[in-house]
């Protein structure tokens, strides 16, 4: 069975060959095309029977394009805005103005960082109170200026720390949700990597929620679920399966509106194509939303979130007998 280690080794080899051909002008094109065919084959095999745990690993892939990389490819311009006007500027959750198809938009995104130093500085995309307050501030700009709000979600979750708890991280997430739901302009969220729990939902309460094919969106990390529910770290892949965190499953549940296909091999194998897909989808959904008058837009949003959930009504009498 192909595993991600084999894949990665082959990917590295292909990359190395390409480098040699380009840099040193070596005549290795035959070897390259051979390897590329092999890689393609293995990928097909691997992606044909992708487990949800494989998807988690893809969503967390070290080469997966990060927030800022996607933002720069998806949007025509990006002008970063900083600070929550009180606590500071949290670089784990960034945002600013941008253009999309000639239209001004407000963008929010988690930033995980690629290098170790970046990851430390961005705390792997785990934002704290200043981050969620900044998010709410930028949502306020979108609201006042009637600019569409677009968020790219990629976080393991909100930052769990003493400082964060001291500044009411929970309350700042609640305010972020409240503010996002009240923006008087179209809102679209795209889960592009990890959609980790409250830290994700804080900027994902949009009119349309899209999701990259190999992104995940989950109420808890598979590791956390394994520890709490299975009391066994080895149950992590099983937990990933159970949590229903994959894009197709969430689409089936109606939690997300559209799965955005990734290149075979995942977004990191072709960030440009991935960005193109995101851009095309954003423009399509924004076009639809722009055609709605404000009261209808808000009514649809209200209905979407008011009605979410899965339960059934029973007759209490019979229920009590059942127990």
């Amino acid at each position, binding site marked *: 069975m192909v595993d991600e280690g084999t894949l990665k080794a082959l990917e590295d080899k292909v990359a190395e060959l390409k480098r040699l051909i380009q840099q040193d002008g070596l005549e290795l094109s035959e070897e390259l095309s051979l390897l590329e065919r092999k890689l393609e084959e293995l990928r097909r095999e691997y992606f044909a029977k992708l487990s949800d745990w494989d998807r988690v690993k893809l969503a967390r892939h070290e080469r997966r394009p990060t927030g800022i990389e996607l933002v720069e490819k998806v949007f025509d311009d990006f002008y970063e805005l900083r600070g929550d006007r009180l606590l500071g500027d949290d670089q784990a959750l960034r945002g600013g103005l941008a253009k999309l198809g000639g239209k001004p938009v407000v963008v929010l995104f988690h930033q995980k960082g690629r290098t170790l130093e970046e990851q430390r500085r961005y705390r792997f995309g785990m934002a704290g109170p200043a981050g969620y307050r900044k998010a709410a501030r930028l949502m306020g700009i979108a609201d006042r200026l009637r600019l569409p709000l677009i968020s790219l979600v990629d976080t393991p979750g909100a930052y769990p720390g003493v400082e964060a708890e001291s500044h009411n991280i*929970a*309350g700042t997430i609640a305010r972020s949700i409240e503010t996002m739901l009240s923006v008087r302009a179209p809102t679209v969220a795209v889960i592009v990597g990890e959609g980790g729990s*409250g830290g994700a939902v804080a900027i994902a309460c949009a009119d349309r929620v899209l999701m990259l094919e190999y992104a995940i969106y989950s*109420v808890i990390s598979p590791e956390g679920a394994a520890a709490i529910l299975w009391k066994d770290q080895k149950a992590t892949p099983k937990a990933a399966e159970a949590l229903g965190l994959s894009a197709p499953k969430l689409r089936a549940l109606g939690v997300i509106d559209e799965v955005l296909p990734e290149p075979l091999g995942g977004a990191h194998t072709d960030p440009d194509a991935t960005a193109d897909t995101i851009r095309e989808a954003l423009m399509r959904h924004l076009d639809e939303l722009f055609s709605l008058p404000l009261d209808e837009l808000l009514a649809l949003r209200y209905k979407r979130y008011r009605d979410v959930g899965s339960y059934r009504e029973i007759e209490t009498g019979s229920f009590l007998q059942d127990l």
Partner: protein
Amino acid sequence: MPIWKDEKKKNRRDYVEVTPSRAEDLWLRCQSCGELVFRKKLAQNSYICPHCGAYFFLSAEERIASLVDEGSAADVTAPLVANDPLGFVDRKPYPDRVKEAQRETGLLDAVKVVEARIEGHPVVLAVMDFRFIGGSMGSVVGEELCLAMERAIELGVPFVLVAASGGARVQEGVLSLMQMPKTVLVRGKLARAGIPYIAVFTYPTTGGVLASIASLADITLAERGTKIGFAGPRVIEQTTKEKLPPDFQTEDFALARGMVDRVVRREELRSELGKILSLLDGGRYGG
């Protein structure tokens, strides 16, 4: 298991039990002083040990009884039962877990909603029950809270939420996460209708419930002995390697950081709510 004890003051009254008792036991043993207490007697004393003042664990029903005027509560919890949207199985299937919890608690899910009076003031009161899968918020809890707020709007009476929750209902996956925007949305409707919303944080008020509906009250009380926080201490220590301060996520920690309006002893909770409700009573500006 004690979760709050003021060691310096040797104050046994600050001992809180977090392990539920079995509903069928007529006599309960106080885990603080070891005395056996007659359940009925305990109920008359807000579930505070008459011997040592320790707080016993409260079910939703017991909590309601301890807060509302006798005979005033009408159960309006909607007859809703959780589906199993993910076909979730951990060590047991989710439907079995729900059924077990139902059997144990006599509740349909982790919240009970009543129309009642508190010291004469009509309210819609939603009380979460920690015994039911850790008071976790899934689709049913989310819907019940929304229906409760909508009922408060309809009746024009304050909404009171007694929170007790470990967070989101993991077994319903992202659908339980979605109960965060859902409840926040309807809280907005409540606010636009000018209906007061009072939250009481009891043991424990954490995770997704704290990061949505619970944090958005007009007035927030914390019961002495509660735990208030977004992330669990173990997660924090594992992720950040930080040493946690001794009062971390206690009600006094929250009060000092401006997260709650008051810390209230259980025996005063009812009169405290009565005071607030009476202060909100009377001719408001109708212009």
